[in-house]
């Protein structure tokens, strides 16, 4: 009977003061919530982290007003194993000690990795050198573009550009014509070159529009008789293509 009474009293009274007092514990990197911590005095706040050195990361989740102070809910993340005092990581006056423990399953004495340090690029020169190099590249690009644009029309006209002078192209056609060996294509070329020959000889006429130049050439005292005879030979139904006639006609262009 007495024994049962003692057990009932013990259950009603609960644990003895100081006997079950435990320190909040959490593993490294895991969040640990510590709630309803009474801190007298003014409001406290976590000390700012200037680097990666502090072993705890502290956040205040909530602040509830209380008599002569406040009650705080903290979330703490431990980065280094061991016992720590949360008060060391808070800013404020008269903060009581708030012990906590961060545990780890790693063996003690683990070597930390070396900190990463930014690599230093080799210095290629100062600002002036860099500007000179960039300027040279830009100028070279500009010259390349200008040269490319200048060459483009020339490439497109390759087949129409005269490689030889007008007289050089005219001479073989004239000698072939004298022997009567000219094809229709060559006769057309011959006529165009002869017109070109007279335009070269009359720069004031060459400056005119081609249509007007043709009319002027057919009225030029020196060119007209020869051009009209040439037209008669090449275009008329009744052309005189005898060798002596052709020789006379083409004589001015043989030299």
């Amino acid at each position, binding site marked *: 009977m007495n024994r049962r009474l003692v057990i009932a009293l013990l259950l009603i009274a609960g644990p003895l003061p100081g006997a079950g007092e435990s320190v909040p514990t959490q593993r490294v990197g895991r969040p640990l919530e510590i709630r309803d911590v009474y801190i007298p005095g003014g409001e406290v706040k976590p000390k700012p982290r200037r680097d990666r050195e502090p072993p705890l990361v502290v956040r205040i989740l909530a602040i509830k007003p209380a008599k002569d102070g406040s009650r705080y809910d903290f979330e703490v993340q431990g980065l280094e194993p061991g016992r720590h005092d949360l008060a060391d990581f808070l800013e404020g006056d008269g903060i009581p000690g708030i012990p906590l423990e961060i545990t780890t399953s790693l063996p003690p004495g683990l070597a930390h990795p070396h900190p990463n340090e930014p690599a230093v690029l080799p210095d290629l020169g100062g600002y002036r050198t860099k500007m000179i190099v960039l300027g040279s590249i830009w100028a070279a690009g500009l010259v390349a573009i200008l040269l490319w644009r200048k060459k483009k029309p020339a490439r497109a006209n390759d087949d129409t550009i005269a490689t030889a002078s007008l007289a050089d192209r005219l001479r073989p056609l004239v000698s072939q014509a004298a022997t009567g060996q000219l094809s229709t294509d060559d006769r057309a070329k011959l006529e165009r070159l002869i017109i070109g020959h007279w*335009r070269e000889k009359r720069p004031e006429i060459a400056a005119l529009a081609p249509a007007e130049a*043709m009319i002027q050439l057919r009225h030029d005292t020196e060119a007209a008789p020869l051009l009209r005879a040439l037209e008669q030979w090449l275009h008329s139904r009744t052309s005189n293509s005898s060798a002596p006639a052709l020789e006379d006609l083409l004589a001015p262009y043989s030299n």
Partner: protein
Amino acid sequence: MSTVHSPVTETTEYLQAIRERVGTIVVGQDVVVERMLIALLTSGHLLLEGMPGLAKTLLVNTLAKAMHLNFRRIQFTIDLLPSDIIGSEILDERTGGFRTHRGPAFTNLLLADEINRAAPKVQGALLEAMQERKVTIGNESYPLPTPFLVIATQNPIEQSGTFELPEAQLDRFMLCHRLGYPTAEDEEEILRRNLKLGVKREGTGAVARTEFDLIQGEAIGSEADLVAAMEAANHIHVSDVFLKHVVDVVERTRKHPDLELGCSPRAGISLLKSSRSRALLHGRDYVIPEDLFALAEDVMLHRIRLSYEALAEGKTASKVLREILEESIS
């Protein structure tokens, strides 16, 4: 000198007389008259580009009168309908049936003034009539009178509210002549003639006379003379060498780097036909390079299109064509 056959001489004289008759009314537009005659002889069509006030209507009217041809003029506007040109079927209340009303296209010389002011479907209707030389009204096709020549005009400056003719339709015009202002001497002569016009009495009233009142006199020649001239133009000799020149110039337009669109084969055909007519007008029975060069701008310029790069460089089609012609004889 060229050997001139008698038929050519007679035809040339007939055509020369027409040019002179037109010259008595219109001053300083002899080249345009030549182009009109070329178009008429070859059954081509002519597009005239020029500022207003250059006597285009007077010119066509005078030519029609001189050649005893019917002449009609249509002022193209935005609200013009195809039926306003080709005609339509209208309900005859007396008979209760439809009868055909023939439009102004049924004429010999049709002046389509400011063709680019009409909507594309109207332009299309006219250009189709030009090509096929017949029109369809309702379910019936009607042939157009012969000869049938369209002389269209467009103003090169004022482009707002216009519909530019696309290349395919421009190609249907055998010639596109750019009318310039008259020379100082010609302008002086125009003013002198205008001073002498005076006043025309009509009943009890009077009205100032215009150049149109001067279009009088008998027509030169007859329809048979015109037909003979057309046949003579068709018999003008074209040498193989001339053909090579035409092919060379046309090919150069297709290869030129500044041109996006070169000349079509129709341009070559037009060059040949128009050169023949020009030779006839100048009393020759064969064509020569001068004909080709004289007509190249009118035949080819409206058929070529500059590339974007050439436009950006400030080039013009006229300059490029000149380059092409100069390259061909250098």
